[in-house]
């Protein structure tokens, strides 16, 4: 349905997207995941012909973007990043305007409008000025605009950014329902988001695709491991003996913290729990366990590891990880608006 091959996008000397290729089948919900500035938005902008690739080709439903852009744009519904809207229009006027440009007949518009109002839950605000709406409603209006013409493909750039946790859940719900019938492509820098709604995840970093697979496969391939952080009190230890305990066990890291105190990170298949064996082994050796901590490798961790190359990058990812936790502040101010 969507075929992107060898697409490159340069902004001046900066290469934002670097030879990206992927295909999306009809009915898939695909999530682009990556830290800020990874090239997600640029990719989506090229899929909607807002930007033209420096090289490479985009093919949607058998038509080439370079030659049949207008036709392709008829099939696409697009919710850009930050959800720009015409503040001085009413919701109805805005949808009418979009319908006009999309050449929807009055008949189609009049049958689609109630459905879209229902689907996006914008009944109460349909005659209000967009500028007066709360963020949650604005997002729904943006979605309504994107699905008004019953498109084959819906492209959403960071659809839940800036919403409070309740609104995020609502929008995700809408997206999931849309995904039952449509091809949906969305981007996010928040792990839980793509995990919650997407079938397939494309992890992108520095303009390159670094992982592209079904969500479950990604999870089991990369997340099928337990990481055990150990702090040990030991004199002249040889940690490689740990490897005899289990064939899947490997020593991820070892280092001296201070005199006789060692830090060891072990990694093993999460099918078995090796903690008991490991403790016994340590006791046999005559070492002491100062601390032992088990970590599941979640997708979030994988994302972190895959995209972490420099310290600054790690910082950016940290911020995104903690972002949902700072959300309640937003709620406090968001609650005063017309929403809820």
């Amino acid at each position: 349905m969507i075929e992107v091959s060898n697409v490159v996008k340069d902004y001046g000397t900066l290469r934002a997207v670097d030879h990206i290729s992927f295909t999306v089948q009809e009915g898939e919900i695909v999530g682009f995941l990556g830290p800020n500035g990874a090239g997600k938005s640029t990719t989506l902008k090229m899929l909607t012909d807002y930007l033209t690739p420096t090289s490479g080709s985009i093919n949607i439903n058998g038509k080439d973007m370079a030659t049949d852009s207008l036709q392709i744009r008829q099939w696409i519904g697009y919710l850009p990043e930050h959800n720009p809207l015409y503040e001085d229009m009413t919701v109805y006027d805005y949808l009418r305007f979009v319908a006009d440009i999309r050449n929807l007949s009055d008949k189609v518009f009049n049958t689609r409008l109630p459905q879209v109002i229902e689907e996006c839950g914008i009944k109460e605000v349909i005659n209000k000025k967009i500028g007066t709406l709360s963020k949650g409603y604005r997002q729904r209006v943006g979605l309504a605009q994107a699905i008004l013409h019953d498109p084959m493909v819906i492209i959403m750039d960071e659809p839940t950014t800036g919403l409070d946790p309740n609104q995020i859940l609502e929008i995700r719900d809408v997206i999931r329902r849309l995904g039952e019938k449509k091809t949906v492509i969305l981007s996010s820098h928040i792990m839980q988001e793509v995990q919650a709604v997407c079938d397939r995840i494309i992890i992108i970093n520095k303009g390159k695709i670094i992982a592209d697979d079904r969500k479950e496969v990604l999870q089991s391939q990369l997340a099928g491991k337990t990481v055990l952080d150990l702090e040990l009190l030991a004199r002249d230890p040889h940690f490689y003996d740990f490897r005899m305990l289990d064939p899947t066990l490997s020593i991820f890291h070892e280092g001296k913290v201070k005199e006789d105190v060692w830090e060891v990170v072990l990694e093993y298949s999460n099918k078995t729990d090796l903690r008991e064996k490991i403790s016994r082994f340590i006791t046999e050796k005559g070492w002491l366990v100062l601390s032992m901590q088990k970590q599941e490798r979640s997708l979030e961790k994988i994302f972190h590891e895959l995209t972490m190359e420099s310290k600054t990058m790690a910082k950016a990812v940290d911020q995104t990880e903690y972002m949902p936790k700072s959300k309640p502040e937003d709620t406090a101010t968001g609650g005063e608006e017309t929403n809820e």
Partner: protein
Amino acid sequence: MNNIKSILKKELNSYLVSPATYIVLVIFLLITGWYFNSTVFVIGQAEMRSLFSTLPILFLFFIPAITMGMIAKEKNTGTIEILTTLPIQDSQIVLGKFLAALILMGVTLLFTVIHLITIVRFGENIDYGSIFWGYIGLLLVSATYCAIGVFGSSLHSNQIVAFIISFVLVFFFFIIEVILVIFPGPLAEFFQYLSFNYHFSNLQRGVVDTRDIIYFGSMIILFLKGATISLESRKWN
């Protein structure tokens, strides 16, 4: 065509709901009304020439003001991304916006007909031909200014900057006739041909020359094309 109409409708609507439009319009009518009435009875001649020759000066401020937001504001708020990814060509967006500004100018000019009525009531020997062509000339001048205004608006995301760009451009084509003396012969002729006033004054005298029409037409096309290219340039930079 339908697409252009949708854009046109949207732009006219936003003119209608914006208080700024009315403020600018009222100021414009106050100035023209004052200017017309303070001179017409003094001169004692049933003609609109003095008003007609002042209008292009007023338009220097008026038209960049009504066009400055057309594309700049969309760039600023990001709605340009919605608009340009809808199935509509960039040239249609530009054309729709240009026509909206032109229609607003047409309506504005329609208000000055009140002065014409004054003349018809009180004057004799009215040269209807020159007044008719004067209006046509004013429309062509406005259309050219509008095209430049839309072009200026497409160059920047800040409305004020867009206003200044458009103003400088229209001012250049307006003032160039006045400073012709500093240029040597052939160059002066060339710059004279570029000037709005040179072509407008022909029409105002009731002299219809296709060269003048071609001048205004090509200026309009040039700047609308420029605006389209500027809008499309986002794709490649």
